């Protein structure tokens, strides 16, 4: 589980920032997420949702408060939290299976075991048969699949995803959402996704967290079930057309929009 308590993040004064923007990105934010949740962080751009993710990943030290995974307070990056980046961050000098087994190489796992683990996760993300392909031969969607498989191979407790599908086309995006729910169901990991997509967040999340404009605090914390329903077998398009789904989506959209208007007023 993830426990964020009175978290504040402020950029140091020497870091460059545009005039009129507060150096305080997150101010006294608290959030508790049960194990196995799928959290979607949503909010106006520049609101600090990525900063929150980076604190949990350990890339950013909070200026006050704490973030903890399974009771362990986070200081720096660690193998208990896997990260999937928007620009995939794969290593082009390794082939697909080389990238997926990379976390296991770092840990000194034996070659045979590495390969077996990597193959298992590549199959899970639908890349069976692509093991020996070069990274630069793959499409954006396939690269993100490799990124997800790589993060899973490290066997983290929490999977952190920073706008993972932001650079993909609409169709690939929908496929990746379904893939993510499949992976979530198969592995039972706690997943945190930062996203700009209101429909995406509404569809995926068990915990949809809407953040305010900077400095970020929580505006809504909705408990949803659409992702769970898809994982249970309901078709994605059918769920997204439900009046109930549309109502929630519009409500969330309205609250994000309000935050954005305050920003631009």
């Amino acid at each position, binding site marked *: 589980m993830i426990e964020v308590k009175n978290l504040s993040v402020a950029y140091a004064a020497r870091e460059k920032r545009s005039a009129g923007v507060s150096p305080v990105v997150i101010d006294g934010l608290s959030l508790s997420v049960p194990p196995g949740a799928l959290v979607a962080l949503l909010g106006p751009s520049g609101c600090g949702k990525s900063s929150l993710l980076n604190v949990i*990943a350990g890339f950013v030290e909070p200026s006050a408060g704490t973030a903890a995974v399974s009771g362990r307070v986070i200081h720096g*990056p660690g193998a208990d*939290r896997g990260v999937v980046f928007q620009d995939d*961050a*794969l290593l082009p000098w390794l082939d697909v299976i080389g990238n997926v087994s990379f976390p296991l190489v770092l840990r000194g796992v034996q070659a045979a075991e590495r390969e077996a683990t990597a193959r298992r996760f590549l199959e899970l993300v639908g890349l069976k048969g692509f093991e020996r392909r070069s990274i630069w031969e793959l499409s954006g969607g396939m690269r993100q699949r490799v990124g997800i498989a790589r993060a899973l191979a*490290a066997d983290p407790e929490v999977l952190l995803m920073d706008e993972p599908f932001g650079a993909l086309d609409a169709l690939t995006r929908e496929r990746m959402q379904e893939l993510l729910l499949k992976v979530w169901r198969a592995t039972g990991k706690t997943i945190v996704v930062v996203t700009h997509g209101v429909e995406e967040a509404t569809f995926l999340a068990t915990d949809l967290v809407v953040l305010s404009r900077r400095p970020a605090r929580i505006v809504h914390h909705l408990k949803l079930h659409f992702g769970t329903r898809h994982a249970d077998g309901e078709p994605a398009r059918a769920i997204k057309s439900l009046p109930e789904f549309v109502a929630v989506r519009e409500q969330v959209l309205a609250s994000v929009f309000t935050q954005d208007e305050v920003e631009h007023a």
Partner: protein
Amino acid sequence: MSLHPSAAASTAGASIDSAGATRGIAWREWLGQPGVVSLLTIAVLLLVWQTVTSLRLIEPLFLPPPAAVWAKFLSVSTTGFVDASLWQHTAASLTRVAIALLLAVLFAVPLGLWIGLSPTARGVFDPLIEFYRPVPPLAYLPLIVIWFGIGELSKVLLILLAIFAPVVIATATGVRNTDATRLRAAQSFGATRWQLLRFVVLPSALPEILTGLRVGLGVGWSTLVAAELVAATRGLGFMVQSAAQFLNTDIVLLGIFVIAIIAFGLELGLRALQRRFVPWQGKA
């Protein structure tokens, strides 16, 4: 946007198919290939050379005809010049450059890595390298001779110094350009500092390192003649130098051609190496 791409394609096809245009385009395409143009240029130059010498516009003492240089190539290859055959001269030069290159890889690459990683190391070594780099090798050759004598050491050292700077600078640049998210990704999998260097930084810098070696090898090879000016008994630079003293212009030309052809070969070889070892360059 047209919903009938086939219609658009057939119109375009018709315009190309119109009789004589096709032949014109094929001819221009063939001529447009860089390799063809280069070969034609060389052929024209050879022709001009041959014409100028057959018409005796220039004395053979200053410019011997191509056939004479070719004949020298055959005789120097077999009987030799100044106690050594062309191949022995070439081997002597290549050995010096190879040793210098090896030493550059052993010392310049680690130093470049260090400079790229540590601001302190950068502060210490950057001014030193920038100080000697623009100085022509011939200017510090006398100093090297005073310090290290007139043996092989001085010659290799001079070439090494020429290769050293570009390799250090390229390596340091490569290290500093390492993608920050790739480092973060490796850190999130629990990579230690050493593992980051070994598995992320070094492969990231490899394209730049190879480019540095390519540039360095070019500079090093061109320093060769300077290096072999002093008390050499073998080497292509020495061969050209001593032939000039006897006004053996044909051997001077021959030496220049061999030096140029080897430089070209080294460049092609390193480019092939780059394609082999960093196929992802420019793609990811």
